[in-house]
């Protein structure tokens, strides 16, 4: 007897249809799985065997061959358990085969026959809809995630007998409640109201949020760089539905999304500085997304930038430049999206006390620190803010700024940008190309003169010139000004990163 069950294999961030063929023959009892399956899939024999018996089904004493087609695609993970079990039940005529044709099934089995949460359910559900299937059976915990895909009947089930009931024509359980509408829930990120002092840094954070600019925080250890960076999430505009679905898909494939439903908040990823290049941008024999992709539509926070290995920082180049990273394995290329906002923090020198008489770094230390920081990454930093320890009075002062107020201003500024840049393919000032800068950023005469002067003084490079204009445009947007005025350019100059390299070494 032969049975066919449709399921899906995760491939990059998408899923590919896999047909599980189960064949039962007379002969010595045996159970083999073929079709480029990895260890987790081969182990599924034991799970399926036990789950069937513990759910009061018979395990056929036959020669069982399971084929996962197409055979050229590598299959990993335990998501094929349920399909294999259903196939065996259908092939041994414990279940009617007809119903199986309209369902895709996906899930991991426990030995008791219960279904477990699986990675990548959203990608699977999208695949099922693309394949034109009527319904998808998934573990109950994943049902809300699968239900994000419109036009697909999703049955969330808890155990193998429940699956059998559906396939015998029983009523599927109530569809899971629709995902809550986006952005309604209050963000649970820490609030800016907790911050004391740091007025300059909060202002820089506001500008960074408004224009999606990359931000470098420089200051001695313990001044609150990390604390501030974590609060950026709370002032960013909420994810759009489309963005949220993308983020959910990535996080689900990476196994980070366990709650079901949509990811509501922009992700913040803060990898430790010992991270390897594949960990940062994605990789592995079967490529999985790295931190840069997990931070897609959110924030990648690199604490202690100068401690990251040179190769890791170099690897970030393409993701920063193109917003995607392409990973090539064999003949296949897998593309992960990596459109994140980069926030980095650094000590001004290895001991962190640069500029104060207590700094005890040697020339060699300073030179090494400087070399570490220079390069392509720094070139992408639009803003630099120096942080100092807040004074005792500042610490004792009442709460300064609430995230909600800043968020409103940021939101308004983003809308102005979107309106101005409609049809150009970019949405934020940070993405302005030199051509778009010329077209869309009009500086008034005084602003122009201010910029000209610092450029002529040799204080600004050509690239730095563009950065200042982009930031000045954002500052004007925050103010609701159509033109970029001198005050905007001046403030942008005050936050320029140009001479971060001029440590105590430079004259």
């Amino acid at each position: 007897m032969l049975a066919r069950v449709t399921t899906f294999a995760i491939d990059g961030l998408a899923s590919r249809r896999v047909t599980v063929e189960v064949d039962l023959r007379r002969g010595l009892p045996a159970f083999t799985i073929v079709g480029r399956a990895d260890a987790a899939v081969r182990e599924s024999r034991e799970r399926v065997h036990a789950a069937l018996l513990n759910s009061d089904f018979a395990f056929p004493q036959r020669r069982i061959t399971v084929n996962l087609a197409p055979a050229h695609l590598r299959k990993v993970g335990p998501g094929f358990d349920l399909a294999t079990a259903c196939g065996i039940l259908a092939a041994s005529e414990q279940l009617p085969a007809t119903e199986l044709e309209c369902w895709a099934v996906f899930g991991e089995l426990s030995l008791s026959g219960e279904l477990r949460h699986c990675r990548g359910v959203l990608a699977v559900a999208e695949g099922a809809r693309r394949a034109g299937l009527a319904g998808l059976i998934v573990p109950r915990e994943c049902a809300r995630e699968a239900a994000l895909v419109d036009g697909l009947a999703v049955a969330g089930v808890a155990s193998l007998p429940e699956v059998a009931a559906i396939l015998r024509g029983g009523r599927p359980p109530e569809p899971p409640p629709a995902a809550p509408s986006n952005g309604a829930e209050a963000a649970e990120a820490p609030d800016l109201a907790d911050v004391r002092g740091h007025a300059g840094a909060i202002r820089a954070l506001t500008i960074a949020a408004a224009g999606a600019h990359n931000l470098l925080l420089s200051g001695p250890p313990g001044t609150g760089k990390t604390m501030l960076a974590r609060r950026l999430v709370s002032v960013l505009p909420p994810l759009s539905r489309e963005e949220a679905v993308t983020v959910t898909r990535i996080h689900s494939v990476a196994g980070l999304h366990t709650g079901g439903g949509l990811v509501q908040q922009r992700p913040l990823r803060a990898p430790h500085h010992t991270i390897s290049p594949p960990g940062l941008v994605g990789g592995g024999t079967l490529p999985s997304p790295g931190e840069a992709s997990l931070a897609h539509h959110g924030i990648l926070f690199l604490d202690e930038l100068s401690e990251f290995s040179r190769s890791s920082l170099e690897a970030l180049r393409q993701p920063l430049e193109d917003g995607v990273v392409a990973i090539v394995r064999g003949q296949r290329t897998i593309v992960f999206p990596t459109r994140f906002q980069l926030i980095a923090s650094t000590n001004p020198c290895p001991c962190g006390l640069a500029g104060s008489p207590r700094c005890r770094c040697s020339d060699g230390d300073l030179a090494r620190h400087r070399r570490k920081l220079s390069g392509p990454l720094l070139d992408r930093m639009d803003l630099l803010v120096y942080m100092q320890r807040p004074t005792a009075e500042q610490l004792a002062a009442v709460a300064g700024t609430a995230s909600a107020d800043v968020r409103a201003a940021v939101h308004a500024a983003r809308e102005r940008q979107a309106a101005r840049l409609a049809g150009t393919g970019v949405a934020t000032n940070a993405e302005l190309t030199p051509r778009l800068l010329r077209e869309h950023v009009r500086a008034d005469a005084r602003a122009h003169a201010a910029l000209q002067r610092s450029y002529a003084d040799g204080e600004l490079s050509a690239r730095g010139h563009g950065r200042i204009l982009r930031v000045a445009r954002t500052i004007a947007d925050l103010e609701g000004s159509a033109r970029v005025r001198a005050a905007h350019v001046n403030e942008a100059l005050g936050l320029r990163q140009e001479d971060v390299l001029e440590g105590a070494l430079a004259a």
Partner: protein
Amino acid sequence: MSACDGCLRRTALVARLAPHVERARRDHRHICELLALSDDRLLAALAGDRRAVLERLHERFDPGVERARLLQAGLHAVCRHDADYPPRLEQAADAPAVLHVAGDPARLAALAGEDVPAVAVVGARRAGHDGLEVARGLGRGLAAAGVTVVSGMALGIDSAAHAGALEVGGPTLTVLASGADVPYPPSKRSLYRALVRTQAVISEMPAGFRPFKWCFPARNRTIAGLASLTIVVEAAERSGSLITAELAQELGRAVGAVPGSVLAPRAAGSNALLRDGALVIRHAQDALDEALGIGVATALPGRDPGELAPPLRALLARVEDGRDTVSALAETPAEAQQVLAGLAELELLGFLRRGPGGRYVRRV
């Protein structure tokens, strides 16, 4: 402008003996004594069991080959027997036999001629931002009055003095411990290029020479010899710039120092000089009065804050008062907005400079 065969031969000998000097040296005085020895005695003192080989090499020295090398490196040589050799330097017994010049050779006379006043500005490699600002201000003020600023292009104070002089187009003269065609320290390559292009860079060492440790105190004797006044801007105890001051004193030249905080270890050496009777130098005007005579030249007036709009003037006053960071100046983000823009404007107008760690320094 040229160098005689004997002096070129002497230079080649010193370069060849450089590793031997490195092994034998005790302190800077010893180095100067060695460098004052004649060729034979220098060989006798240093060569040891390699003496026969080195003597043969010394005898076989071919000045034609050396001149070709200099030409290739784009250097010009001037020896003690040439009229263009800086007259002030010639007075020292241990003065270099040959000076190699990178840049237009005619400029050497303009920078270090008989009637051209020259002041050395030296100090710590790791200086505080106000020390750097003072050095820059001295460089600018002295150069603007036509006084040659002599220094060694080291990190920190030296480079700041050169940079200040370059801001007003010189004159400034750079003395290197490496060959004059070797930018040392390498991180100052761009400053080196600017100095060669418009000023002059000199060294007693032949083309392509990479410096040993002893070459730096040796270079300092040239700096001291070239200048009529040596100013130490910031020096810790046991700093190389104190050697320059000592050598200048021995030549009978004036020595000055910029006072620093008595609590700061990095100004301990320069403060000790003041205690021992060095001239107090507060700004370029003090240095000019000393080098040229009181009232002969007036330093460039600093920018007058009176011309600023009242809010900027107030901001500048607060920075001068010690609230020199954005965090210290602003309590709220809205204030920070004003402060950031104001500080940048003051920077553009030349009143402030953003230093390391985001501290703003008053420009002098």
